[in-house]
């Protein structure tokens, strides 16, 4: 068998992912298939016994077991109509302001994000809920699309987030610490979005006109406040319950996710949305989402095993140090750029699996705080949902958007929000305390 240089294999492995994606094949099996092909090319048949061990490693893993239950909790909440009630009340509360309905979307997404941690769920829910409404009120299509995509993506950053659970598993940091680290950056992004909406709609009211007088008159201010309070209380209690037990160390994240799913079920019963059929449908659709996420993990895990084995990690490390010219901030910028550009191509699971084994040793060598560095990557990975061509939030949105909304509207709409995410990332780099302050309270 001819010898291939690690540089060539590294390049071909990335090129292979792109080719497979463009051909429309599921990402999980592209990654797995490439692991087989390049395992043979660079290593031989003995590479494959690692696959079985890696998969058992994913299965026999109490931290990752939280992922399906958080997804289950999210799906139960989605069907219990928490977001509906919250959006309805906030729409009346913020509607009189220019751009108020868009702000309501961001607020609902922030609260909903704190209950779910699944991007698909929040983007689809908000698109179905808010999009027809915003278009009816005359909101600009691009602004509508951008708001929903960016807001829905917050779910992956604001705890409990399945991304942070996976990062905890990959780094050895505790889930609780990462959750605490993710809160402030998530709120910063959320505030940036609201500020941006206020700014553009303030200058050009036609982008986000306030509610009409008749509509305002229908619901008095007092009623609006009480509606908002009533719809906010149960989800906020659930968040406090789930996060509080994790932060205080009463329960492990896995226990909290299981109890959270159970409480979400009770909430669905409380909201009178529960039926046997609803429960069965939720269990089935949760199964499909869980298997989708976890099979990408399976494929990515095998891919990374081979990638590191054929020397791809060393190639990437050398490249980063060469380009960085020994300046640690330049190296940090290069790593962030790599994640940003990978984000335009593959999804967050693949990126975490490929970059973490390479980046974490580099960050350690440069003396960066591990928690801070990991949360920076989490903030940066927000972009991976929005950056074309492969921004997953864009696909989710386009899948459920009304016919009048074009792909161009969606792409145009997310551009300012991508810029805002980069501003948020920059703020977290500038003020590390935003990440590390709260996390320093627990061990």
């Amino acid at each position, binding site marked *: 068998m001819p010898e291939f240089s690690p540089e060539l294999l590294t390049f071909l492995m990335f090129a292979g992912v792109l080719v497979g*994606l*463009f*051909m*429309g094949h*599921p*990402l*999980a*099996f592209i990654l*797995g*298939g*490439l*692991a087989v*092909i390049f395992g043979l090319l660079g290593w031989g048949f003995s590479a*494959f*016994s690692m*696959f*079985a*061990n890696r*998969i*058992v490693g*994913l*299965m*026999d*893993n*109490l931290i*990752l*077991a939280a992922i*399906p*239950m958080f997804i*289950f909790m999210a*799906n139960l909440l989605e069907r219990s109509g928490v977001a509906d009630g919250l959006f309805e009340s906030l729409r009346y509360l913020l509607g009189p302001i220019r751009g108020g309905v868009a702000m309501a979307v961001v607020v609902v997404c922030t609260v909903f994000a704190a209950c779910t941690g699944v991007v698909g769920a929040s983007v*689809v829910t908000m698109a179905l809920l808010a999009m027809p409404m915003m278009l009816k009120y005359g909101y600009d299509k691009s602004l509508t699309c951008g708001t929903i995509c960016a807001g829905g993506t917050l779910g992956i950053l604001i705890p409990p987030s399945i991304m942070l659970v996976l990062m905890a598993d990959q780094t050895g940091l505790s889930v609780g610490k990462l959750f605490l680290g993710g809160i402030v950056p998530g709120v910063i992004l959320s505030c940036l979005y609201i500020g941006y909406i206020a700014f553009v709609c303030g200058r050009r009211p036609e982008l986000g006109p306030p509610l009409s007088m008749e509509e305002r008159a229908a619901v008095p201010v007092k009623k609006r406040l009480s509606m908002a309070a009533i719809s906010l209380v149960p989800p906020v209690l659930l968040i406090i319950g789930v996060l509080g037990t994790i932060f205080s160390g009463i329960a492990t994240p*896995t*226990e909290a*996710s*299981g*109890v959270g*799913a*159970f409480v979400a079920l009770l909430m669905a019963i409380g909201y009178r949305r529960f039926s046997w059929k609803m429960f069965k449908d939720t*269990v*089935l659709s*949760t*199964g*499909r*989402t*869980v*298997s*989708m*996420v*976890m*099979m*990408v993990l*399976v494929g990515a895990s*095998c891919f990374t095993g081979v990638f590191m084995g054929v020397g791809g990690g060393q190639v990437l490390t050398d490249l980063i140090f060469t380009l960085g010219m020994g300046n640690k901030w330049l190296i940090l910028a290069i790593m962030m750029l790599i994640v940003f550009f990978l984000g335009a191509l593959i999804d967050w699971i693949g990126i975490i699996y490929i970059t973490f084994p390479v980046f974490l040793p580099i960050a350690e060598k440069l003396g960066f705080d591990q928690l801070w560095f990991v949360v920076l990557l989490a903030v940066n990975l927000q972009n991976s949902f929005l950056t074309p*061509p*492969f921004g*997953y939030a864009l*696909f*989710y949105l386009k*899948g459920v958007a009304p016919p009048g909304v074009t792909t161009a509207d969606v792409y145009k709409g997310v551009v300012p929000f991508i810029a805002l995410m980069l501003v948020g990332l920059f703020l977290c780099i500038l003020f590390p305390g935003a990440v590390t302050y709260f996390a320093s309270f627990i061990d």
Partner: protein
Amino acid sequence: MANYDTVSGERWGLGAEKGGLAIRTLINIIDTISEWTGRFAVWALVVVVGIIVYEVITRRVFGSPHVWTYEIITFFYGFHFMILAAYTLLHKGHVAIDIIYIRFSPKKQAVLDLVTYLFFFFPFVIILLYVGFDNAVASWATGEKTLTARLPLVLPGMKTVTPIAALLLLLQGFSIFYRRLFFLTKGREL
């Protein structure tokens, strides 16, 4: 990407043509196996939630923790997502990007599917079946026990899940592959 299937609810089906082909019956049987293993395996997650709620209550309220619960939980959690892989494939639920794919003619799409299944899907799944089987046999032979609670059966059982999931995936992959081949050669859905 029509993959968030609470919205799309897509699933591989069969064309209108009835009877005649023995292979049609085979494909139908495979789809049914994937469907019902999926409908069975999804409940594993409900079992996990149940065990956790039970454990939290007994430990926090009655102060009697059980070590074994966590080892049982990981088994059911692993079983859940692995066995569901074939069911999710049947329901077109695995995340893929069709932004370019949909611009091709249906025949070219079939060619793309055949190529990608041959180069990516089948090699991976067959290797998983092979190494997973070896791993499971070795585990049963040595009678591995879990590390903390020393439970028998759990680890060998968990290791047996991989080859079973791979076999189910292989069957479902064949079912889709044959459909695409039939469409390419005959110009109509199976």
